[in-house]
């Protein structure tokens, strides 16, 4: 039995997996990762399956120890990783042995980091998933953020080689693409021009549920109250303040504000990973174009996973030399 000991935890460390499926009709948010591809790649780098649970963190990750040898990998962005003080790279796997201290800093060019351990985090599934939903206190460890002295069971995992990417995985660049609607007709032409022509600043008012944007106000000529309807990840709702709110992984299942547009699924992780204070722009595309992007994005992710190879035996040595 392998135990993960958390000696220190950053302010926002939670257990996540792909999230709850099929319970939106009962008001249960899917939850799951803010950046799905990064989580999938972290799992793949330690030989896990796509349904295994990982730790997601924003801000500093923390300090971790294990009771049995494991493989681990950190993804999401550039980040300082130390094994007993020795620097290690993200986006590839490493061994962590009993007695070693793994210290993980904060993402430098991104927001959300993913820390996968071979075997996956073994907290009991709740309503079909291990993903933590903080608002309703479901999943993960007692439905809450992790803290110092928490202990988590890791799943059984066979020993395996250390892995890395043959080619580096890269996020798309350019504007955040959106599909107009479902309440696009609540906004007039002038507002639509402002929405698509002017930049928005990623506000520090953000969490796993929602991302607020600062920029031109978006008044709804159709009014800012609708009869509540269903939401999706990426819904851009506009309350009476005119300040758009993008619903994220932990969103509520229904909402009563008009939704001017929906962020394309491939670009939502990119928005989640944009540091606060940065400017973004939106570009409108059709539903069909967004479907094409999603299908292509899934293919690229599959190719990235297929392109994972054993790290050359010398790789660790070269890092030793660099130290």
């Amino acid at each position, binding site marked *: 039995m392998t135990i993960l000991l958390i000696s220190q935890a950053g302010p926002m460390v939670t257990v996540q997996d792909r999230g709850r499926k*099929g319970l939106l009709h009962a008001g249960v948010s899917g939850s799951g990762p803010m950046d799905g591809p990064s989580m999938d790649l972290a799992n793949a780098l330690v030989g896990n399956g796509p349904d295994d649970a990982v730790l997601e963190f924003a801000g500093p990750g923390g300090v971790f120890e294990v009771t049995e040898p494991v493989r681990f990998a950190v993804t999401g962005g550039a980040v300082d990783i130390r094994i007993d003080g020795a620097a290690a790279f993200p986006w590839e796997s490493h061994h962590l042995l009993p007695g070693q201290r793994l210290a993980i800093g904060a993402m430098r060019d991104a927001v959300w980091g993913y820390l996968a351990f071979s075997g996956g985090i073994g907290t009991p599934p709740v309503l079909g998933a291990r993903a933590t939903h903080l608002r309703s206190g479901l999943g993960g460890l007692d439905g809450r953020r992790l803290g110092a002295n928490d202990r988590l069971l890791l799943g059984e995992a066979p020993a395996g080689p250390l892995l890395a990417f043959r080619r580096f995985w890269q996020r798309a660049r350019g504007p955040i693409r959106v599909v107009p609607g479902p309440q696009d007709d609540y906004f007039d032409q002038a507002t639509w021009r402002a929405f698509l022509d002017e930049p928005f600043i990623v506000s520090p008012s953000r969490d796993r549920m929602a991302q607020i944007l600062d920029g031109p106000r978006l008044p709804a000529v159709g009014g800012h109250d609708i*009869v509540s309807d269903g939401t999706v990840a990426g819904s851009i709702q506009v309350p009476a303040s005119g300040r758009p709110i993008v619903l994220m992984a932990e969103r509520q299942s229904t909402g009563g504000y008009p939704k001017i547009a929906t962020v394309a699924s491939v670009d939502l992780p990119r928005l989640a990973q944009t540091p606060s204070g940065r400017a973004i722009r939106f570009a409108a595309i059709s539903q069909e174009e967004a479907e094409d992007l999603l299908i292509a994005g899934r293919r690229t992710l599959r190719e990235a996973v297929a392109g994972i190879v054993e790290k050359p035996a010398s790789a660790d040595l070269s890092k030793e030399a660099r130290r």
Partner: protein
Amino acid sequence: MPVTYPRIVACGDSALSIELSDEIDEDVNARVIALAADLAERPIDAVVETVPTYRSLLVLYDPSLRRAQALRLELEARLRAAVPGSRAARRFVVPVVYGGEAGLDLAELGDMKGLSADELVAIHAAGEYRVYMIGFAPGFAYLGGLPEILHTPRLATPRQRIEAGAIGIGGKQASINSVSGPSGWRFIGRTPLRLFDPSRSEPFLLSAGDHVRFRPIEPAEAAALDAASVAGKTVVEPEPV
């Protein structure tokens, strides 16, 4: 903005919303629920899940299996064929302790309406309610059928924490809180029933389309029902409507 209903609108690259109206209406809601039931009984491979709401059905789909363009045609055909009321309705009689600590707005609401607390309780408990949708939080029930005299705007500033089981009024709607959390609704009592308990084999008590009546109870009965709820027992059984 003349809009004709029904219409099917895009919600990004993995969802469509079938809008039947832009108003709260029992017949519209019954058609939404019938369409959701039809899609559950005769699934379309690409449809991942559906979310029935007051007047629209959100359909989440996988574009790798079917594109929106093709899915729209199939959903339009289903919409024409769906018959409301094909599922037998059920009614839950929900025991409520009115007033007390959880009914923190009962006295003020009475003053606003010119009603005594007893009169207000009698009016609330005489209503026949219907679950229009479950949303916002796990198992949270939005109820229609609130008697008009009890319609009351929400608070300007939401309270930070309202307990699970609180019986609320928000505008024209009534509610039963399923989990504790912030709320701008007004509260007149509490039920010992748990609308949501993830440790139960049936975690959710209510579904969209269910009927609800409220039954005033005394604190002594509430204490017994609380104990049963904590033990994970089903405290009430539904009756046929």
